[in-house]
């Protein structure tokens, strides 16, 4: 029985595939996208998230921390993360939920059982389970057992992936997956490397392999001003979609700055700090263009 690290199981997920879904957020990602919306998912190691506004200054964390990371100075709670071993003892005694442990170990069986709890809703809505993250295939054996067992109990399965993983792994998993939500972030490999930390060659290779296998794919394209919101990338998306046979939909995801505050909560500095929401209207023209040139439905989500 496989055990893996996740940080959330979100029920009533409406935007990670068809119908009402349960999304399992894996912890750990091989990419390091500067604009990352879920910075708490990057490291596989658990982290301590601190919501300052919830702290009631009870001092319980101060008394349990073996590393003396917490101090109350002039009624201000100061968290020194340098010595933090991320043991999570403080989060267990933080009843105000100001300190929260992000990331926990769980068995594949438990994940499947929790996903199956909402089966009645999936049946009415055509929904199911979505593995997301982080990067699910960064924990390939754990992900494989989840999808396998989900299929055994008849759940519709989606995987949201950045595609940066072993081709063998993704293909093995693919046979238990109904739909891939496959990220296509940046066309130019050099720019890709610059903003995500890796080039996109193996990603494209994996995408092609899935397509060859006849797997249904939704391309998910984060639209980041100054990085991927440009004509060149839109052309890249069009060319890619036309080269594949099984892309059923293309999603344009306008940038939102939620990652910034999440970074702060886990004591990290955001690498991309634009606080402007990208409006849907800006993407309307691109949507028209992509649809007309590929014949594929484009959604702005």
């Amino acid at each position, binding site marked *: 029985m496989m055990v893996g690290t996740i940080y959330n199981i979100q029920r*009533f997920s409406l*935007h990670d595939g068809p119908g009402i879904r349960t999304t399992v957020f894996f912890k750990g990602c091989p990419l390091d996208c500067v604009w990352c919306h879920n910075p708490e998912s990057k490291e596989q190691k658990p982290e301590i998230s601190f919501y300052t506004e919830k702290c009631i200054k009870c001092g319980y964390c101060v008394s349990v921390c073996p590393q003396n990371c917490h101090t109350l100075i002039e009624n201000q709670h100061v968290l020194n993360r340098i010595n933090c071993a991320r043991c999570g003892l403080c989060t267990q005694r933080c*009843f105000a939920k100001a300190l929260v442990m992000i990331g926990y170990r769980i068995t594949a069986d438990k994940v499947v059982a929790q996903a199956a709890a909402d089966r009645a*809703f999936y049946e009415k809505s055509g929904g199911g389970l979505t593995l997301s993250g982080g990067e699910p295939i960064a924990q390939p054996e754990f992900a494989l057992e989840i999808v396998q067992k989900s299929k055994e109990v008849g759940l519709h399965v989606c995987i949201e992936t950045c595609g940066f993983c072993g081709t063998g792994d993704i293909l093995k998993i693919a046979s238990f997956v109904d739909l891939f939500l496959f990220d296509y972030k940046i066309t130019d490999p050099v720019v890709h490397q610059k903003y995500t930390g890796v080039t996109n060659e193996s990603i494209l290779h994996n995408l092609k392999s899935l397509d060859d296998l006849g797997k249904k794919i939704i391309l998910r394209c984060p639209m980041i001003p100054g990085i991927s919101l440009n004509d060149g990338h839109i052309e890249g998306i069009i060319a890619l979609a036309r080269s594949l046979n099984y892309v059923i939909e293309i*999603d344009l995801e306008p940038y939102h700055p939620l990652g910034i505050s999440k970074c702060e909560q886990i004591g990290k500095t955001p690498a991309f700090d634009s606080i402007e929401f990208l409006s849907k209207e800006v993407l309307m023209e691109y949507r028209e263009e992509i649809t007309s040139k590929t014949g594929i439905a484009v959604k702005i989500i």
Partner: protein
Amino acid sequence: MCDYDREKIEKLRLPAIDPYISYEDIYINFYRRFAENNSLMHFEKRYGDAYLYAFSNAAPSIDDGELIVGKSNRKLTPEEQTEWDLLKKYTVPMIALQRGQDSHMTVDYELLLGKGISGVTEIVRNKRAAFDLSKAEDIKKDLFYETCEQCLKTVVVFSNRYADEAEKQAENCKDEKRRKELIKIARICRKVPEYPAETFYEAVQSVHFLTYCLSANPLRLHIQQFQLGRPDRYLWRFFENDLKAGVITPYEAQTLLDCLAIQINRRVVHGLSSGYMVGGRDENGKVVSNELTKMGMRVIEQCRLVYPSVGLCCCTDTPKEDIELTYDILKQGFSHPAIFNDEVITKGLREYGLPAKEACSYIHSTCVEITPIASSNVWVASPYTNLVQKLLDVLDREYDSMEALMETYFDHLRESINANFETELSCRVAREKSGFIPLLSCFINDCLDRGLDIDRGGARYNWIMPTFVGMANIADSLYAIQKMIFENKEYTFAKLKQMLDSNFEGCEPQRLQLLNCVEKYGNDCDAVDRYSGIISGFINTECRKYTPCYSNARLIPSLFCWIMHDRFGRETGASPDGRPAFFPLSDGSGPAQGRECKGPTASVLSSTKWDHTPFIGGIAVNLKFNKTMFDDESKQKLTALVETYLSRGGFELQINVTDKKTLQKARENPELYQDLVVRIGGYSDYFVKLPPTMQEEVMLRTEHEI
């Protein structure tokens, strides 16, 4: 009239937003006459005499533009007011008993529309013809029928006075269009409700006029909340015929329904409830879904007023478009239509002994209390019981086990149910002597058959429906005790009581531990949810013990709260679920405010783990969504959510679409709004979890979308 008359509705709705409603114009004359005329021997005769006198001297009120007429809004003159105050002080208490339930019901509109007042009078006369007035028994019965006849006559007289008024206004009317309308109103008021209705317009006027007359009940001076039943059934044949005959268009019919709806707002003061239901199944088991079903719901968006409160009765084969119409209305921020589970309600009514023919014809008697149409003496929400206080009452000692605590709690609750039942029953006995509503009795089965007034046991169904408030708090509190005292052994009952009595003074971390670190009802956690099953099961079993007795006075339980969760909350100390003293109790039967952390699917699963069927007295489950959730794609998913709730046996569902104001409240009071989901560019999250800047952004956009 040729099209939907938006201009008219806009004009009529304005004074209906905050209307002056008063029946004192009628009451003052009733009591004047009643006090003066003691030459008549019998209470009944004096009632009938005063009733006719009161309505004959009340002022008809027809405002410019009205198509459906009948309302009371005359303010008393200062002299009259002085007289009325005296009457209220000395005369009214001698005659009228103001205690106990009333109205909340739907009368027999089929009878009214099919036979007219004249036809009902005929029935009454036939009954009287058979009496032998040399027998005391027959004299008693005849007095009842005689008063019925007098009251029926009163309605006809009053309707004709409206006709006179319309004619008078027509004479002086310079606007040709309005003059024609007034002439038509006069013609219709001369015909209905006296005679059977023949057109849609006549039917709507007839229904309104009788309901309006019933609303002035001299022995019950507070505002009466009559419900309009199932308009998509009783109005359908008129609409269909008119349409075929080419005398009406759907737009004209919508205008008339809107006029009817506006008059509800001028008949019932704010803060109460009045409305109707649409959909469901007819007595042949066929789904009711027609143009009037939809028009009945569209009234909400056309009129944009607090009433009518509309319920859509959903069956397994209710057309999707009817359900989707509710979303289109809800997403605009209206609190209705509410969705009722026809399968569950019909089953519940059958189990309480209703024949199939009657079980399909019920009404939400204001909020969610279900009563059979045309045959109920309704006694809903009598009384409200505070489930949490009953627990706090017994926390004054140590218990060896959860079972021991539950036993003591249930004993306490049992005593309260019994005491309350005795009080309500006693009140009914009192009303047998002092209550008297002959006009209403003419339209409630089987009063005329039995020769008994509705207040004297004439109705076919005389249920008493107590309701229990704070279901989620009690489940959460019991589980908190189980976990913290018995499992984790964190503290004793004495310590818990001390913390509760001091409202967690100096123990905020412990309160937060109870609130945040113990699982809560509404999150699909069996260990907690089982308490809702235990509590509802106990209430149901207890109530069944009282069946049937005194004129079919079954005790039928309910689990809704109207505004009592707030009122009880304000007088209830801190509870073991981490709720601070004086905070509202949970509303309805879903999770307590802000405690749903796993989303609506988990909440729906939790609230349907126990059997709703016996709770015909009403169950309300609320789900909150922000407006941002209502795009086309999400709409399909919300439909699936609702369908799953219904297929799991959920009784009623109220979807609240929150606006900017709610978001503002959520920022100020995050603890109460932890379940509020909003959508932010491609993803949904709990509003209170967002950082302040993001909350700002969502609020800005919410406002934008209104």
